[in-house]
């Protein structure tokens, strides 16, 4: 039960995001009609109500907005990894997303520092977008 929960991540709208990550690509949904980038993904553009969208490649450059360091109690899949950081970043495209940290520790993080996307597996083995200091 608990391990199933790790993969319940927002439903069908999110599948292209995680699939892009497996190919080492950071992609976000963008409105085909008005060009607005949006995240989290959804069926309709909140600016123009268009239901047409594409999954466009993002630059992978971002700014660190906030972070936490997760301590116990955690789900079984994470027990060997605590404490670990999770970051909230704002991408150049204007959308925000989250991820783990690679190539640095929580002590290296500074508010508003530049970050770049990288890819590393989640505990279930899938490559997912992660972040490292630029």
């Amino acid at each position, binding site marked *: 039960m*608990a391990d199933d929960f790790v993969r319940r991540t927002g439903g069908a709208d999110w599948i292209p995001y995680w699939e892009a990550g497996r190919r080492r690509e950071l992609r976000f949904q963008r409105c085909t009609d008005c060009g607005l980038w949006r995240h989290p993904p959804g069926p309709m553009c909140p600016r123009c109500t268009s239901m047409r969208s594409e999954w466009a490649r993002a630059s992978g450059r971002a700014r660190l907005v906030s972070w936490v360091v997760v301590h116990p109690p955690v789900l079984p899949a994470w027990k060997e990894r605590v404490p670990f950081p999770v970051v909230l970043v704002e991408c150049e495209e204007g959308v925000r997303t989250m991820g783990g940290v690679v190539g640095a520790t929580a002590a290296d993080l500074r508010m508003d520092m530049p970050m770049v996307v990288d890819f590393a597996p989640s505990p279930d083995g899938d490559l997912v977008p992660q972040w490292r200091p630029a």
Partner: protein
Amino acid sequence: MSLRDKAAIVGVGQLPFAKDIGRSEDVTALEAAKLALEDAGLRPSDVDGMMKWSIQVTSENAIARALGVPNLRFFGEVGYGGGGGCGVVGHAAAGIAAGMARCVLVYRSRNRGSGGRPWAGTSRERDQSAADTNETALFAPYGFVRPVDQVAMFARRFLHERGYTTRHLGWIAVAMRRHASNNPIAMMREPITVEDHERSRFISDPLRLLDCCLETDGAAAVIVVAADLARDLKQKPAYIMAASQGMGPRNVTMNNFFKDPLLESPGAYAARDLWRMAGVSPRDVPVAQLYDAFTPLVLGSLEEYGFCKAGEAGDFVSDHGLEIGGRLPTNTSGGSLSEAYVHGINLIIEATRQIRGTSLNQVPGAKLSLVTSGNMVPTGALLLRGD
């Protein structure tokens, strides 16, 4: 038409809080409902409406059937867990104001102390309002699923932008514990200091154990009736002077990080509508129950409900502003941090006691009493008044 003063809370009931209450939420909901009806001097046959949290595992028909309620002509629910409480009571008042009910039972029973954790997938609870996508788990591949992580992500940026420190968070925990110390049903009564807070272990840095509410088994109920009925009952009515809800733009449950301004909560929207309906200002309010699942939420509410300006909430709490005798005695029965965490129904009951004059930490002569719901999710607020 406004619901202002059209309905009142006339009955409250709650069971002693526990880590393991030893019986199901279906049973404890009934026990609490019975206590609330007795408190009001009403019978199950008087009940014609019910409102509940959508995350509540016990359905209205099961409660009505067991209590022997002859007919429910008004029933419904509000979602988003701890964001729902004031909305649940607000909808009860709206139904009464619209003539759809005369006597509405509101209940919340929850075995969160003994019954598993929603974030770990081990609880019976499922919030129907978020069931399709489970927005709280959007970032589960990063181990980011607990409410404490989501509040901590907000909190680090909030402290940074406002110039607040974790010691300010500590002052909130200290005040709640002080209020719980004379409350015999509070789960945590041993006084704490800011140093105790700063020494407690990290759960999600920057938040520590003493920033977190309690894992509680509990059950409580509230009876809301039409104002003309309220005058003739056993208790002094707590009139619902104003009720509001708010969601704000582009809301995501708990992970509400995808809109601008980033640090604005749904509470900012509920606050605006609440003061407009009430026709009073925050300066007129002598006591508040501000939703405190985690300490940073209280700092945000002090700003957004207008008790201080942005950046001033730190001094507000470190100057003992939340304590009896302070600028705004807050969570006077100990709140979610020290009395019990039951999605805020205990806060609604304590707000009612302040109007009745029966709080264990009574603010003398309180005529207005504010209560708010969780502000990391779609939220609500109530302003109660006495005669």
